[in-house]
């Protein structure tokens, strides 16, 4: 491990005439950043859509994992689900403004589950929302798709089977919007492809951090989320 590079007078990303021009750290207001490492969890921060047809209850709680993680456990009927959307849709994607999303998570069953994670409009049907940029895995297959959707009926583009989940194995998914009409998507930090994110497909309504899991059979499935990062240029 090498030694840190030292800048005792500070580092900045703004001009000297900027209000924070002499601030010795980077100006954090240049980007809107959401980052949850799940060292803490408050259910009231989230709009939660829960289905408990199995006669039991879903649960969500912090779990003992290095780095912090949220463990979501469904009730045990087929199609029982637990979906989370941060209260307050605070990401409006726009041309000229770069945006990023990155997450690390795992699920107990890579095949018998529906899984969604990304930015979406708040909805009680997160597996089929009208607007968002998100990864979606359908029940019956371990492969997942990436979707860029503006008003479901008028503009939606996607790439199928861009990667595969493995049961009880963490995966890192990410996308990067360049502000110029392209959306690169990544699996375990490897660039897998690019979607058209021009005005025909770029969501035009505010979105929020969203994730969740639905059972693909009558067995309780779990999702463990290590972290979620989302950022957009101001």
């Amino acid at each position, binding site marked *: 491990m090498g030694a840190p590079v030292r800048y005792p007078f500070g580092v900045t990303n703004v001009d000297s005439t900027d209000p924070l021009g002499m601030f010795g750290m980077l100006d954090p207001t240049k980007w809107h950043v959401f980052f949850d490492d799940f060292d803490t969890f408050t259910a009231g921060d989230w709009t*939660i859509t829960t289905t408990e047809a199995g006669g039991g209850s879903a649960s969500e709680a912090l779990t003992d994992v290095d780095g912090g993680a949220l463990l979501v456990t469904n009730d045990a009927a087929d*199609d029982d689900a637990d979906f989370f959307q941060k209260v307050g849709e605070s990401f409006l994607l726009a041309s000229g403004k770069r945006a990023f999303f990155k997450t690390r998570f795992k699920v107990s069953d890579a095949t018998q589950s529906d899984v969604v994670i990304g930015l979406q409009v708040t909805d009680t049907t997160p597996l089929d929302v009208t607007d968002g940029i998100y990864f979606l895995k359908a029940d019956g297959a371990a492969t997942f798709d990436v979707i860029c959707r503006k008003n479901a009926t008028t503009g939606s583009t996607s790439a199928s089977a861009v990667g595969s989940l493995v049961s009880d194995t963490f995966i890192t998914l990410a996308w990067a919007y360049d502000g110029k009409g392209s959306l690169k998507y990544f699996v375990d930090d490897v660039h897998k492809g690019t979607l058209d994110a021009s005005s025909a497909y770029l969501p035009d309504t505010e979105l929020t951090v969203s994730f969740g899991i639905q059972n693909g059979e009558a067995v309780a499935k779990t999702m463990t989320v290590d972290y979620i990062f989302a950022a957009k240029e101001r």
Partner: protein
Amino acid sequence: MRYRIKKAKSGFTVTVEDADGKVVATKSAADMKAAVKARNELFAKTRDT
């Protein structure tokens, strides 16, 4: 808010709970299809975003 469908003795109960877990709205449904419809209706009325 939490929008919950839960199995009842007969059919399903749909509830809306506030940030403290207090139930602020309830509907009953005979089957899951009706429960999903009821949940969507409650969401439209009470969404906090």
